[in-house]
């Protein structure tokens, strides 16, 4: 028999930023697998319990765990002493066997035997009531959750993100007797704060969700784990943030009704605000309000940040996505009795906040942005890496390297680059950025323009922190992208150079994000940003050189580590961009040049394009066969010195001579096609070797005992293999899986 199990951990308001982790939404970092469902699964499997599915739910005041189909009995098996110790020569149980049986509450006659790799041992098999197991397991499930910060609130020694005030814990209709800290589990829950804070009984697991619905307590749902699947491989496909999506739809509808829209593009800021609003209310309700149009003279980003940071309000953009409307959307808790008064109160606070922002704007713009640059001497970038001021010449140098690799004309002007580098960090010492750190760059862009800097420079400064996340938009101008790239490469080479690269889940300087942004800029819009000729290797090298003696690790090490790091991000990004593509295709395109992120991306897109059409797919697979057979041999001989050039006079077998003849014809054609980037034609040419190569391996034993013969044959195969692997992709590993 199985039943459903429910646990509700009633808390004082939990931080909104903790809840995605609680619901196991986090993919990376210290809190991946730190949620309630994954903690429960790990405890349950430890205890051998049998269940159908585990799912978590949450609001700011309650964390809920639902285990469906939990079996009433839990089977246990404990291994005891070896049979040789447990029974004497006559086969009678010894005292060791008796003691072991007693410890597990069994008569000696119930002990069985089991063969282990070491010896045959006695075994106690018994079953426990799951209710008994749960009494122990529940506190462990709660303790197993991971929060960024925990606290104490009484002398019980319990730690949690905020105080735990009640536990509702039911197996079917039965209360599980357990406790966490000083709180004992019962069959009662508390409703919203607006309702009288009187505990309400819940008679069964199934009634609970009905009660929540009736009280309009919207639970956000976490992942659902089913047994047999590793939770983290399938987790995110099933992740459906229902409540968050519902809220987004409600906000979008309201914005539309105001003839506006919610955001200009999917930005990191919007994502943060939506998540915060979702997790800040048990029953989120959207209301609109407005502010005085005179404040629209302030930059829209400042108004939006001020409303978002201080009041968690959503801005409403005009249809063009650039200007703001003098409106806002508030997400309130439940349905306050006087909603009009609530929005009127919000409007007063907005006025005060905007008047503060105006104060900062006026103070900051009394002097041109240039006047702030000197103050950067006092701003520490990192104690091992000097000041922000010292970054200026390095960023300038990196910009010059990028310019070299770009297809834009040199006439664009080196002075422009120098100006960008000099001013891009100056806003760090403004009052506005001190108040709104998330506006760094954006504020600099406005102040640069106000100070009379050119449109190009101002825009580049304004967008050089983008992209801030995987989904955040890229800079909109080439110069903005270049500046972003130079900024990131300077930081990455610096941190890596003094041994501060991310380890495991710890990434305190957000270098993964910085690197991912660099990779996105390099790959996503390489043509638009004229970056097609840029070598990332040379960029890294220039970055390392410009740090000079400050770096403590050898340049070679930094170069290799950073290259590998960027490749890792590249692979992740490629996996996201092409979800269906197998990893073997992603790996294949790296062979021509392991530092060429841009080329690899271009080749990957082409290759995946070929695979879509059945005919060109066949061409790829034919070529892959050639690569596979030649590649296997080359790898098999990896211990041997294979140098020099092919000596055709050493060939003996007719098939060998025939293959060589065909190759002599094909090779120049292939080179020409590859040089012109006609990859599909090149693959077709290459594939023509499949039959001759097949015939070759039927007759020729490459790894023969004659060394000169062997090396000559290997040289030939290597030449064939490299012809494709060295220019387009190493297809030798793709065939099996394709």
């Amino acid at each position, binding site marked *: 028999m199985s039943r459903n199990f429910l646990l509700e951990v009633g808390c*004082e*308001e*939990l*931080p*909104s*930023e903790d809840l995605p982790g609680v619901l196991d939404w986090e993919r990376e970092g210290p809190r991946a697998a730190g949620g309630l469902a994954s903690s429960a699964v790990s405890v349950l499997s430890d205890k051998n319990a049998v269940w159908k599915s585990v799912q978590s739910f949450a609001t*700011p005041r309650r964390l809920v765990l639902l285990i469906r189909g939990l079996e009433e009995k839990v089977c246990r098996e404990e291994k005891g002493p070896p049979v040789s110790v447990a029974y004497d020569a006559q086969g009678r149980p010894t005292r060791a066997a008796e003691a072991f049986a007693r410890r597990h509450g069994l008569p000696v006659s119930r002990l069985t035997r089991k063969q282990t790799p070491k010896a045959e041992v006695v075994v106690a098999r018994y079953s426990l009531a799951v209710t008994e197991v749960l009494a122990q397991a529940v506190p462990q499930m709660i303790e197993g959750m991971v929060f960024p*910060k925990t*606290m*104490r*609130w*009484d*002398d019980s020694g319990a730690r949690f*993100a*905020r*105080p735990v*005030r009640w536990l509702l814990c039911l197996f079917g209709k039965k209360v599980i007797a357990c406790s966490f800290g*000083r709180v004992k589990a019962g069959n009662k829950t508390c409703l919203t*704060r*607006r309702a009288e*804070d009187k505990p309400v009984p819940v008679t069964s697991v199934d009634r609970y969700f009905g009660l929540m619905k009736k009280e309009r307590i919207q639970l956000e749902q976490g992942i659902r784990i089913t047994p047999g699947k590793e939770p983290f491989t399938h987790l995110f496909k099933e992740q459906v943030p229902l409540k968050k999506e519902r809220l987004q739809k409600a906000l979008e509808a309201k914005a539309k009704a105001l003839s506006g829209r919610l955001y200009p593009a999917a930005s990191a800021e919007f994502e943060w605000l939506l998540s915060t609003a979702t997790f*800040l*209310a048990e029953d989120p309700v959207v209301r609109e309000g407005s502010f005085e149009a005179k404040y629209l003279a302030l930059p829209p980003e400042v108004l939006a940040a001020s409303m978002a940071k201080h*009041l*968690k*309000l959503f801005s409403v953009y005009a249809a063009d996505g650039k200007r703001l409307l003098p409106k806002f959307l*508030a997400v*309130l*808790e439940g349905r*306050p*009795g*006087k909603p009009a*008064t*609530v929005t009127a*109160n*919000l409007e*007063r*606070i907005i*006025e*005060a*906040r905007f*008047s*503060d922002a105006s*104060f900062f704007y006026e103070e900051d713009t009394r002097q041109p942005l240039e006047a702030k640059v000197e*103050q950067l001497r*006092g*701003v*520490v970038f990192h104690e091992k890496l000097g000041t922000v001021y010292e970054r200026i010449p390095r960023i300038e140098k990196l910009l010059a390297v990028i310019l070299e690799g770009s297809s834009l004309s040199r006439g664009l002007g080196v002075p422009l680059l120098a100006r960008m580098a000099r001013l891009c960090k100056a806003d760090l*010492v403004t009052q506005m950025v001190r108040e709104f750190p998330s506006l760094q760059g954006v504020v600099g862009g406005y102040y640069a323009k106000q100070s009379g800097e050119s449109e190009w420079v101002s825009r580049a400064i304004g967008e050089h922190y983008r992209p801030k996340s995987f989904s955040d938009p890229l800079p909109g101008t080439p110069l903005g992208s270049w500046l972003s790239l130079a900024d990131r490469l300077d930081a990455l080479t610096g941190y890596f150079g003094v041994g501060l690269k991310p380890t495991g889940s710890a990434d305190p300087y957000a270098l993964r994000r910085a690197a991912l942004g660099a990779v996105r800029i390099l790959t996503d819009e390489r043509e638009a940003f004229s970056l097609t000729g840029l070598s990332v290797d040379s960029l890294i090298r220039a970055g390392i050189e410009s740090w000079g003696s400050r770096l403590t690790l050898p340049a070679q090490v930094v170069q290799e580590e950073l290259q590998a790091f960027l490749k890792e991000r590249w692979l992740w990004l490629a996996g996201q961009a092409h979800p269906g593509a197998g990893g073997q295709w992603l790996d294949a395109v790296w062979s021509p040049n392991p530092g060429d992120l841009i080329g690899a991306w271009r080749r990957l897109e082409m290759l995946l394009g070929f695979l879509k059409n059945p005919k060109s797919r066949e061409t790829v697979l034919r070529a892959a066969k050639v690569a596979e057979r030649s590649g296997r041999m080359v790898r098999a001989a990896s211990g041997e010195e294979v140098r020099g050039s092919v000596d055709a006079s050493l060939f003996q077998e007719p098939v060998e001579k025939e293959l060589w003849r065909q190759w002599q014809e094909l090779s120049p054609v292939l080179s020409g096609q590859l040089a012109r980037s006609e990859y599909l034609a090149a693959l077709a040419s290459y594939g023509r070797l499949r039959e001759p190569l097949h015939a070759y391996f039927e007759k020729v034993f490459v790894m023969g005992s004659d060394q000169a013969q062997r090396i000559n044959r290997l040289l030939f195969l290597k030449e064939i293999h490299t012809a494709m692997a060295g220019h387009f992709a190493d297809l030798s590993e793709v065939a099996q899986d394709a």
Partner: protein
Amino acid sequence: MTPPPALTFQELILRLERFWADQGCLIGQPYDMEMGAGTFHPLTFFKALGTSPWKTAFVQPCRRPTDGRYAANPLRASRYYQYQVILKPSPEDVQSLYLKSLKGLGVDLAAHDLRFVQDDWESPTLGAWGLGWEVWLDGLEVTQFTYFQQVGGVDLPVVSAEITYGLERIAMFLQGKLDLYAIAWNGDLTYGDLHRQDEVELCRYNFEASDPVVLRRDFEESFGQAKKLLEQELLLPAYEKLLMASHAFNGLDARGAVSVNERPTLIAGIRNLAKRCAQAYLKRE
């Protein structure tokens, strides 16, 4: 039926005094020195240390020079009043008690939007931190609510709950005023009548007229004195010098006279004093 008239500023304070006195709090008095928050009051800082139970409530005027806006901002000022409550150990129903106190002031919780918004509170100068919330009433932060975890760099064996009411903001809310200077202090006078001119002058002093050289000297002298007094085991005088150093630091900060590099060093200096004061207090207890 007409609703009862909203509370005046002074009536608001009297209600809170009554409410928390009824909860068994000792009603303390403001400390007679400049400080940035009620947390600096010895009835908070020292009493949160150690294991003895403690309940207190009092008004504390606060000085935050950088928050000054020449009386032109409806919500911020360089000098204002906090109402501070310390409950040690923190009772299980502390949130409900707080909500009850708001109802007692005439806040209709069902009509409005009240939210506990996470706040990881930290005072780097006092070596103190705790977790809790900003309490928002229709988006206005009216209270800071904290479970102290550490004070003076010491892990607290008994957790105190600190409730800090922003008196002006609650009064604005209750009276429906758009500007803190428009708050009715009593039946006749407004908050502005008492404090507007003061605020303008304090801002002019803090931002324009104060002498950074003098402030720096004040900082260094107070700092040096505090260390000497600690050696002589004169605890409260040493702590008062810490308060003076902290205030001088805030004055320097308002003048933009603390470089970004120097800031962490100066703050760490004060924190170190706070730690030594805390340790000296615990030794006595």
